[in-house]
């Protein structure tokens, strides 16, 4: 870049070296490196050529067969492990995709350099070239550890899961004993046509939606109510009250959920034994863990307990920042309390916290911990592959670890992923960072 600026402007369009053809350079770099050598960048050319040659050897010797294995998934039962074939195949496909990207970049690079030479650009010597290379590759050096992990820990498992959804991998057809087959959209078809799967899907999905909506909304309402209450100037000990209200957020959630699970125990939990039976005169308490309706009720109450402090803290921060001028003006206009809430407090609070509140909804949509730790998704329901309080993500867990229906678990994960992605996509389009990013 720096060398470009040194040239006087009028020279730019004049061809200084009309014999140096960018097209030739591009064509020559079909074998990477040769085009760069034509551009007299020998160091760069040699490096590229060696890299390319090494890759070609690897491609022929192992990547090719691995991608072939991706299609067959192995041939000899008991000897070929389809899972290995699948993962190696996917990895090789990723490497090849990267290579194709570099290959295209290499041709573009030779073409670009040749064009600059045509315009009279002096090829930098080896040392300068090295410096330039360091400058251009530096951002890649920076992002490489993050990207490497992202690819192997996040992207690759997601790809593997995607692939599993199109195989017949389950308890009865499991490698290394058996060979997996590609079954196309069979798993998805089964999910929507076989009665047992369809019914489970419908009931789990509807409960997931109810759960997300009710539990999160209750959290927000309670938090808003308490935040406004504690914000009242007449109240004393505000600091103490706020600290206590944040306490449920401060205690690790897995600890409290397990405690609640014991508290709600049907037979010897304190809710039934110490509160409902003696204080309210119930004869045998409420079946908190064995009746789906009551388990759901308990879960929503517990999530409200766990989740309101965070929203409360957010709201408190916003309330303290609303200028008192607003309220004084409203007083002069003779507004009552409800009007002040409706036209001043509520819009302020919602405007400032909307993205975080939406995050709360998506958090609860995938809130595996509470569902699993409270009652492992139970109680069991007849004629279903999911328990009465299973949400989509905990259903996937159950299918994977209890029933070993890996193919169905993967198929449901994909549906879940599509739901989350659609939601997030619309969300992101509205956030500022996304918009700003477009203008850079």
């Amino acid at each position, binding site marked *: 870049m720096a060398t470009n600026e040194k040239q006087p402007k009028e020279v730019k369009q004049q061809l200084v070296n009309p014999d140096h053809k960018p097209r030739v350079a591009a064509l020559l770099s079909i074998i990477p490196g040769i085009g760069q050598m034509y551009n007299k960048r020998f160091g760069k050319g040699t490096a590229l050529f060696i890299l390319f040659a090494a890759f070609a050897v690897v491609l022929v010797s192992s990547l090719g067969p691995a991608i072939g294995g991706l299609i067959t998934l192995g041939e000899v039962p008991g000897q070929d492990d389809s899972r290995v074939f699948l993962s190696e195949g996917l990895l090789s496909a990723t490497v090849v995709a990267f290579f194709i990207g570099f290959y295209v970049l290499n041709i573009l690079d030779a073409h670009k350099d040749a064009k600059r030479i045509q315009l009279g650009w002096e090829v930098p010597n080896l040392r300068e070239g090295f410096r330039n290379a360091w400058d251009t590759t530096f951002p890649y050096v*920076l*992002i490489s550890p993050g*990207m490497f992990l*992202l690819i192997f*820990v996040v992207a690759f498992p997601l790809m593997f899961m995607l692939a599993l959804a199109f195989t017949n991998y389950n308890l009865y057809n499991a490698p290394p004993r058996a060979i997996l087959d590609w079954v196309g959209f069979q798993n998805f078809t089964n999910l929507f046509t076989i009665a047992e799967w369809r019914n489970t899907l419908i009931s789990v999905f509807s409960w997931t939606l109810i759960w997300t909506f009710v539990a999160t909304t209750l959290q927000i309402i309670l938090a808003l109510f308490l935040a406004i209450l504690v914000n009242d100037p007449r109240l004393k000990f505000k600091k103490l009250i706020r600290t206590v209200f944040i306490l449920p957020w401060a205690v*690790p959630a897995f600890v409290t959920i397990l405690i609640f699970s*014991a508290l709600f125990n049907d037979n010897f939990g*304190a809710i039934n034994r110490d509160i409902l039976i003696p204080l309210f005169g119930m004869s045998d308490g409420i079946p908190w863990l064995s009746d789906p309706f009551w388990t759901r009720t308990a879960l929503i109450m517990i999530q409200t307990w766990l989740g309101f402090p965070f929203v409360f803290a957010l709201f408190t921060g916003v309330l303290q920042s609303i200028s008192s001028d607003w309220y004084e003006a409203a007083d002069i206009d003779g507004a009552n309390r409800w009007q002040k809430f409706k036209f001043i407090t509520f819009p302020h609070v919602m405007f400032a916290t909307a993205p975080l509140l939406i995050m709360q909804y998506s958090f609860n949509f995938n809130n595996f911990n509470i569902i699993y730790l409270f009652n492992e998704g139970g109680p069991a329901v007849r004629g279903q592959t999911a328990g009465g309080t299973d949400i989509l993500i905990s259903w996937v867990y159950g299918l994977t670890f209890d029933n070993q229906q890996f193919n169905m678990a993967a198929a449901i994960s994909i549906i879940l992923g599509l739901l989350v992605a659609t939601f*997030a996509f619309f969300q992101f389009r509205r956030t500022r960072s996304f918009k700003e990013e477009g203008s850079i």
Partner: protein
Amino acid sequence: MKKGMKKSTKNTLELIIMYAIIAVMFVVIFYPLVWAFGLSLNPTSSMFGASMIPSEPTLEHYRWLFFDERSNYLLWYRNSIVVALATSFFATLIVSLTAYAFSRYRFRGRKNGLYAMLLLQMFPVLMAMVALYILLNTVGLLDSLVGLTLIYIGGAVPMNAFLVKGYFDTIPRELDESARIDGAGHFRVLFQIMLPLAKPILSIVALFNFMTPFMDFILPRIILRSPENFTLALGLFNFVNDQFANNFTRFAAGAILIAVPIATVFLLLQRYLIGGLTAGATKG
């Protein structure tokens, strides 16, 4: 005068109602915690005979956790802290490198990289649990704390890189450009100018990436197999899971020993945490 009187009675009444609501909330918040603490002092191990206010309180269960040779509690505590510290350190480092590149350099593929991260941060690592389980099982990396840490770090990259990038973007470019004119190299600008200026957001990232693994349950549940590799959450879950009622008091003691330090740190840092979250939401 009469009107004033009326107003002050109304005032008092309202105050009483407000304090009453707060008192009810206090009871609801404290009841489960105090109940667990009370149970941890019971001499019996089962929940059945135990009561919230034991007649003969004892610290027996706490002693068991620390000193009994069958107890893995200290080991779990150590595992949790090691995993959490390693995750916190490496995640913060990798996240700052990535965020710095995306914030300050214009390179080929930058935009696609940003989109890829936006896309990937939507999917929790959890969603790929089937694949993670099968993959780790195939390569024999199940039951490894290193594998667990790597997954935490990888999962932390996209979301946190956005958070930090947003913060870097607010640091004036003139600062690093003038340093560069003075001859500072790429790394020097990063380590001596950007990172010190970004300290507030980096400490939040470090803290969150310490808390997440420390409190996480599901990934250890998927990955770890042998009791000596368990983290605290998983170990305690197995206390209650094996025979629910039987070890509950012991679980309660272990839970109190986690809840107290974490809650203390948390309450001390709460202002900071909330500030970080709101910053992340408006800038990220």
